[in-house]
C-alpha cells in the first residue's frame, strides 16, 4: 500500500518539478515580457499545485492515517488543500496584475519576425 502511494507521490513531485523547470526555461527563451508571463503564469501554478498535492498524499498516508495521531497532525493535509486553493486564486490574479501594469506602461507586444527583447 505504502509502496504504491510512494510511487504516486514521486510521480506528482517529478511532474511538478518538470513544469517548474519548463516555466524557467520559457522565461529565458521567450522573446518579450508578455510571452514570458505565459510561461511563468501557467507553469508555476500547476507545478506548485502538483508538488503540494504530492506532499499532501504523502502526509495523509504516512502520518495522518496512523492510529493515535494527534488531530493537529491529521489536519495538515487540509491546510495543504487550502494552499492549493489559494494558489489557484492568487497566481492568475497576480499574473494579470503584472500584465495590466505592463500594458498600461506602454510595453509593446512582440510580433513574429522582430528582434527579441
Amino acid at each position, binding site marked *: 500500500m505504502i509502496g504504491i502511494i510512494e510511487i504516486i507521490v514521486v510521480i506528482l513531485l517529478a511532474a511538478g518539478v*518538470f*513544469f517548474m523547470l*519548463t*516555466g524557467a*526555461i*520559457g522565461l529565458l*527563451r*521567450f*522573446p*518579450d515580457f*508578455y*510571452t514570458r*508571463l*505565459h*510561461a511563468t*503564469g*501557467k*507553469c508555476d*501554478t*500547476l*507545478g506548485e499545485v502538483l508538488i503540494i498535492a504530492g506532499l499532501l498524499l504523502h502526509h495523509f498516508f504516512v502520518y495522518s492515517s496512523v492510529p493515535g495521531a*494527534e*488531530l*493537529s497532525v*491529521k*489536519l495538515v493535509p*487540509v*491546510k495543504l488543500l*487550502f494552499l492549493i486553493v489559494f494558489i*489557484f*486564486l492568487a497566481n*492568475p*490574479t497576480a*499574473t*494579470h496584475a503584472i*500584465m*495590466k501594469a505592463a*500594458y498600461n506602461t506602454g510595453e509593446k*507586444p*512582440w*510580433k*513574429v519576425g522582430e528582434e527579441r527583447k
Partner: protein
Amino acid sequence: MKKGEKVEKRKKGEKSRGEKSRGERGKEGKRGGEGGGGEREGVERKGGKGFGIFVTFCVLFLFWLLLSGIFDAFHVGAGVICSVIVALISHDLLVRERGEKVLLKSFRFVIYLGWELWQIALANFDVAYRVLHPRMPIDPLIIEFDTPLRSDFALVTLANSITLTPGTITISVEPERGRFLVHAISKKPADALTVEKTMQNKVADVFMVGGQEKGGEWKNDMAA
C-alpha cells in the same frame, strides 16, 4: 467591418441585459423590490445582511477550527470572538447576493471547476510544448471581446479561467461592459475565445446570465 461587428455585439449585450432585468423583476421581485437586474444591487438590500453575517461567520469559524485543530474552551472561544468581529466588519465582501439560485449556482460552479482543472493541465502541456520546441511556435496577438457577464464573481471567474487555460492571459476587464482584453500566444487559442466561445458559454451558464435565450443567441453566433 470589425467595428461594425463590435457595435452590433454590444447592442446585443445591452438588449439581453434589458431582457434579463425585466425577467428578474418578475421572478425575484419579492426579494428586494429594487429590481434593476444586476447582482451588484444586492449589496444595498437590507434583508440579506443578517444572512450574510451568518454565512461569513460559519465559513470563518470552520476555517479557524481546521487551522487550529485544538478543541479546548480557550481556543474555540477565541475563534468564536474573532469570527464574529471579522464577520461583522467584512460580511459584505464574501456574501453579496441571496437567492434561491445560490445553491444551484455553486453546484454548477463545482462541475465547471472539474472542466477547468482539465483545461489547466492542457494549458501546461501547451506551454511546455511551445517552450521546448526548437523553433518556438508562437505568434502573439492581443484580442478584445464583450461578454454578457456583469457580476464581480462571474468576471473574476472568467478572467482567471482565461489566464489559466491554454495560450491566453487576461490583460484587463471593464466591468461595466463586460469587455475583456486578452493577450494570446498564437492564433488558435485566440480563436477559441473569439469564435468558439466555449469558455464564455460555460461561465455564463454557471452564473445563469440571460437564461436560455442567451444560449440560443450564442449558438447562432457560432454557426454564423
